[in-house]
């Protein structure tokens, strides 16, 4: 049996078995779950090689499966994050109801993402895309909260995207009589001008929905924060990257060949920039850590889209690097929130505080991820952002660089809020019983935290596969010297390793940390928020005095006019309007049998009157 089939069958079988046999006992279920994620993962990395395609026929459509270098890069994200999140999920979800359902959906969504990456033709791409959509939809509604609003919104947007894609697929099939992606790319040049615009646009709508690009992002905050955190980590980390994956293929392989196609590229880049700013501002305004991270995901995906839109080799390099990094650090942050929510029962930044002593490991992994997110040098986020700025400036997008820079600066605000709200500040009495999360949750988080460090120090680990992927897409071969594109690496002597700088920074950091700890150790006094009676004012019992309350009020007041216009309200306006119209159309069915008979008579009379116009030969 072909290894690709075996891997997908193992995933699928694992999903079914986990659900069915999971009813016997929780232990069997957990073991089945983890093994049906890990075993295919191991098989994939050991046995599947780039360039080996298998193909078969369904309903006369030729389908083909195999993996490309670009897809291989993304499969690191999917399978790596998937394995870690699945280990985490077993511990995090312990004791919840309907776990068999949750696990099998989890496996299904990993399967579908792998399927997307393995698809070499548009139909199987679409099939796996839709499986991914509904399995993640079932995760969004898993907790039964806001299902009619958030869940339906997610699915409607996904469906609009997916159907736009499907429309493009069938048109491509009619034009080229083939569904292979390679055939689409090779014959794209011979399409008529309108098709050259229509097909990439339709495909981009599909991918833009999944990668939460403005103005199609409105589903994202609700969906991200509504699903269980173990899955949101996948959702934001890996699932949204499928949109990025598709977008890269479309932008590089199709849009580049449209006459005047750079306008589309510019538009996408600007939409990405707007997404970044909007997402960041909204993230700053959130008090719920999940929502905060969700908006932050939207913003981070905005950077990636900017990179893709610019489309120079360096921008692509940065976009892909940021995609990998975002999967790692944002995946990890969602896991952190999940751990905190599991231990404390809330994810509200204004309720919990001072967890640094209670959950030190969680804090460390959160710290690493936040530093990576904010793009501070030693960790991975920095490299990606640097390359993005450089590519923007290099391609003369000065205005866009300001936008991106503003957004990335504002990102410090919510990064700080997140870290501070949860871990620093006064310790409340009600949280004194909190313990560190179980090891099965901490270990995946720590692995991800270490990964941010490793990739920040040795970016070549990721840049190598990215370079392979880019060459496959048709960018000029750099013969492994891709880092010469960026000043960042040039300055350090043509090497991909940033160790000297990094080690220096770490040494300074550690020195100050040790210094401050030792110096302040004796004087430290731990107080609660209510411990302010010395100032003459006795706070009421239920007054929320947590530091994170109204954290960035002045800043938010400053950007308020910008944030007032929520695109969300327009969408719900359209939705409600449509439903009102639909409610009106159904009144055609009056309930009176005679009216129906009248319709029939009118129908035939009209047809007879216009028979020559309608059927005239």
């Amino acid at each position, binding site marked *: 049996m072909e290894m690709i089939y075996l891997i997908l069958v193992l995933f699928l079988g694992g999903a079914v078995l986990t659900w069915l046999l999971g009813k016997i006992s929780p232990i069997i279920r957990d073991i089945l779950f983890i093994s049906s994620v890990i075993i295919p993962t191991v098989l994939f990395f050991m046995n599947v090689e780039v360039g080996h395609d298998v193909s078969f026929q369904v309903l006369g459509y030729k389908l083909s499966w195999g993996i490309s270098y670009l897809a291989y890069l993304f499969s690191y994200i999917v399978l790596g994050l998937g394995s870690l999140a699945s280990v985490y999920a077993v511990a995090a979800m312990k004791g919840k109801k309907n776990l068999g359902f949750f696990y099998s959906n989890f496996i299904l969504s990993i399967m579908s993402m792998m399927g997307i990456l393995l698809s070499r033709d548009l139909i199987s791409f679409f099939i796996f895309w839709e499986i991914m959509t509904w399995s993640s939809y079932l995760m969004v509604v898993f907790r039964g909260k806001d299902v009619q609003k958030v869940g339906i919104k997610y699915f409607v947007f996904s469906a609009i995207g997916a159907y736009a894609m499907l429309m493009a697929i069938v048109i491509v099939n009619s034009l080229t009589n083939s569904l292979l992606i390679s055939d689409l790319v090779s014959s794209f040049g011979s399409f008529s001008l309108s098709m050259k615009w229509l097909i990439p646009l339709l495909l981009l709508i599909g991918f833009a929905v999944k990668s939460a690009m403005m103005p199609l992002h409105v589903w994202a905050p609700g969906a991200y924060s509504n699903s269980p955190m173990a899955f949101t980590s996948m959702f934001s980390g890996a699932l949204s990257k499928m949109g990025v994956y598709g977008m890269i293929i479309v932008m590089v392989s199709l849009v580049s060949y449209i006459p005047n196609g750079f306008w589309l590229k510019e538009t996408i880049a600007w939409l990405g920039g707007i997404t970044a700013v909007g997402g960041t501002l909204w993230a700053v305004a959130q008090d719920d850590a999940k929502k905060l991270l969700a908006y932050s995901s939207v913003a981070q995906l905005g950077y990636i889209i900017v990179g893709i839109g610019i489309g120079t080799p360096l921008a692509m390099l940065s976009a892909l690097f940021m995609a990998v990094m975002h999967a790692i650090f944002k995946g990890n942050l969602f896991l952190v929130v999940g751990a905190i929510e599991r231990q404390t029962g809330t994810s509200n930044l204004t309720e919990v505080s001072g967890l640094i002593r209670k959950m030190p490991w969680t804090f460390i992994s959160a710290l690493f991820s936040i530093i990576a997110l904010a793009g501070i040098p030693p960790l991975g986020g920095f490299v990606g952002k640097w390359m993005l700025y450089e590519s923007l400036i290099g391609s003369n997008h000065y205005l866009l660089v300001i936008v991106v820079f503003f957004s990335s600066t504002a990102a410090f605000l919510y990064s700080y809020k997140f870290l501070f709200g949860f871990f620093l500040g006064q310790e409340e009495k009600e949280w004194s019983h909190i313990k560190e999360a179980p090891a099965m949750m901490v270990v995946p988080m720590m692995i991800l935290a270490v990964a941010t460090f490793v990739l920040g120090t040795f970016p070549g680990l990721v840049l190598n596969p990215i370079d392979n992927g880019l060459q496959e897409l048709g960018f000029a071969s750099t013969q492994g010297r891709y880092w010469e594109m960026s000043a960042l690496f040039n300055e350090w002597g043509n090497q991909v390793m940033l160790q000297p700088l990094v080690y220096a920074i770490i040494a300074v950091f550690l020195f100050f940390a040790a210094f401050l700890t030792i110096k302040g150790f004796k004087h430290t006094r731990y107080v609660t928020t209510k411990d302010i009676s010395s100032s003459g004012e006795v706070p009421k019992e239920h007054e929320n005095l947590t530091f994170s309350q109204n954290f960035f009020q002045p800043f938010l007041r400053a950007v308020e006019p910008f944030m007032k216009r929520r695109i969300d309200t327009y969408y719900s306006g359209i939705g409600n309007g449509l439903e009102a119209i639909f409610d009106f159309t*159904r*009144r055609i*069915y*009056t*309930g*009176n*049998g*005679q009216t129906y*008979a*009248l319709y029939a*008579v009118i129908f035939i009379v009209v047809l007879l009157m216009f028979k020559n116009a309608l059927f005239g030969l």
Partner: protein
Amino acid sequence: MNNELYEILRYGILGGSILLILIGLYAALTKRSLIKIIIGLSIVDGGIHLLLIGIGYVKNGTAPIFSPGFENSTANMVDPVPQALVLTAIVIGFAVTAVALSLVIRLYRHHNTLEIDEIKNLKW
């Protein structure tokens, strides 16, 4: 039978049947009483049956029966097929009317009225 009479008869049957259909439709579409609607539908049926018969009529035709002395006179027989059709259609019309009337009884028990306007619990 002379030609004029034949033509008059032919158009009379056609016109009459169409008139019957229109009358029936008028009743079925404008009368509010269920019974009258059913009567209207029956009139439509009758009109159509007449139409079918009219189509099959042959000038100076005889009944389509083979009997001694008429073995070779198929040319003069009226077409038997429409008559068979009409017989079938009459039976079907009868069955439908019977079902309709039984439904009307049920409706009357349930709603206490025969006005079709007032029987619209199912709508939209």
